[in-house]
């Protein structure tokens, strides 16, 4: 079946713009994670959903970052008033049987 998909794959934003990044998890996967991967670094946890409930948002770097999963499937990560330090690859993963399946990521560049 289809894996995790993310869109857009690339996003260029001017500083101060708002962006929305979409994740389509594998159908039926209850758990969904967002990670931020800065250049030359490993992915860092941002937030976790179980169905529509956001159970952990401890990794969100500021209140400009907001994530939702209103119907327990597709999730959106929104970044308001983007800053240059937000430039990174944003990875989404859905999980089954303790294994996380990753999407290809969205590369965000803030100019």
């Amino acid at each position, binding site marked *: 079946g289809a894996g995790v998909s993310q869109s857009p794959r690339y996003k260029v934003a001017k500083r101060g713009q708002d962006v929305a990044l979409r994740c389509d998890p594998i159908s039926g996967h209850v758990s969904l994670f967002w990670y931020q991967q800065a250049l030359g670094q490993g992915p860092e946890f941002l937030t976790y959903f179980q169905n529509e409930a956001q159970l952990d948002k401890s990794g969100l770097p500021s209140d400009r970052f907001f994530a939702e999963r209103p119907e327990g499937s597709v999730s959106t990560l929104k970044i308001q008033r983007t800053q240059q330090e937000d430039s990174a690859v944003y990875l989404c993963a859905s999980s089954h049987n*303790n294994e*996380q399946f*990753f999407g290809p990521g969205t590369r965000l560049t803030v100019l």
Partner: protein
Amino acid sequence: AQSVTQPDIHITVSEGASLELRCNYSYGATPYLFWYVQSPGQGLQLLLKYFSGDTLVQGIKGFEAEFKRSQSSFNLRKPSVHWSDAAEYFCAVATSGGYQKVTFGTGTKLQVIP
């Protein structure tokens, strides 16, 4: 909180040579351990995982890893490297309870020379 250390930022090996990538973790209980590979522009692909049981785990693409509790290590090995193995490799640790929050190492970039 758990943490992962990958001491080698960059490793170069000749095609056909053996490979060992080092990983040390810090976690209070028995962890869940993973190795992922990431090719340029690609997402993370799981190579292998350890949850419990046999400490030597086999993965895809001919990789294996050994969990050594006494050394808090989970090193990745491959007996003969292929040019297509050039990529970045990430070791990761997750909590063994709850929803499995994963912490990644900073990665080791593997270069394979002919």
